[in-house]
């Protein structure tokens, strides 16, 4: 797995962004960037050469599910792997995210081992 891939972390709580950033760093991923909601993230993704997105669901302005749908609609971004890390755990929501083309779904609170397992699974499929 290429540890230099450029990752965007999208969450409205800065502490959660820091936690994910630290966990990713422990796993060897140092090229991480942050956005505080979907509306901020989408232009960053369109403009930059990101390889991977980790996003929350419940955020102001543009929610994670809408960010995911927009990514899948964009000709440039549609193949980008997206991992959802969220407290939303209703079956309808998980099904909705799956239908929208999410690559992994982690419910908060989560452990470092869960994050590693989901990342391995996602990249295994992309390599």
């Amino acid at each position, binding site marked *: 797995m290429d540890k230099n891939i450029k990752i965007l972390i999208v969450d409205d709580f800065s502490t959660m962004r820091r936690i994910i950033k630290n966990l990713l760093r422990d796993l060897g991923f140092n090229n991480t960037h942050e956005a505080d909601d979907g509306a901020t993230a989408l232009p960053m993704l369109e403009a930059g050469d990101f390889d991977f997105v980790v996003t929350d669901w419940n955020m102001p302005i543009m929610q994670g599910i809408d960010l995911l749908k927009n990514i899948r609609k964009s000709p440039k971004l549609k193949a980008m792997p997206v991992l959802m890390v969220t407290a939303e755990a*209703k079956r309808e929501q998980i099904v909705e995210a799956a239908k929208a083309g999410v690559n992994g779904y982690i419910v908060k609170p989560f452990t470092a081992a869960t994050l590693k397992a989901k990342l391995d699974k996602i990249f295994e499929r992309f390599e």
Partner: protein
Amino acid sequence: MANDAAQLTLEDVEDLRALVEAGMQDDARDALLKLAGKFPSLDKQSKVFEEVGILTRDLHNAIKDFAEDDRLRVIANVDMPRASERLTSIISMTGNAANKTLDAVDACQPMVDKLNDSVEKLLPAWSALMHGRIDRDNFVTLCKNVDTLIRDTKKNAAKVSEQLTTILMAQDYQDLTGQMIQKVISLVAEVEDKLLKFLMNFSESEREYLLEKDELQSGIEPHGPALDSIKQSDNIAANQDEVDDLLASLGF
């Protein structure tokens, strides 16, 4: 009225008239109600009117009590704003605690990394020494490196210990936010109680109806972390394993 066997007599009317003329309104009303009782169909209607009357009076009283309840005025003007203030400060206190802890982790990480690197670098020479295969120059270098490692470790151990204390102290929010949350919970319970009493005046099943309606809200709207009281519901994935099972069933 055709079914009513009883007859209205001239005497009844005269009695009523006498009472009205004497200004005895209350007695006149009672006499009229008694008369109505003689006619079953009329009586049924008057009972309906009576019920509606009672309901109207209850509703009127309930609204009046609600509007004049001093406690409610205190709740609306003082307790509610205070509750939002408490909740806002809970967000900032937990945020500060999380940031303090994360800062401490960030401060410790390079020291731990450095310790690990130094030990890695020492290992080949150390291993040679342990097997008695080391020359004088390498031995001197090893001694110097071990000396540096000991000094650095002593210095950094003190720093790490300091950071651990910071992490420990950052947990004091639990006690403080716990007390604030308790206050908000009792306020919410009190308001719920008052609203329920108010609603009970109209319908016993109101609460069930409202709960049901709330449950039916759109399934994919964000709800935030699932509460323990609704986690048992079949509709909520209680943990990561259940999420994985569901996704697997969808072909993931």
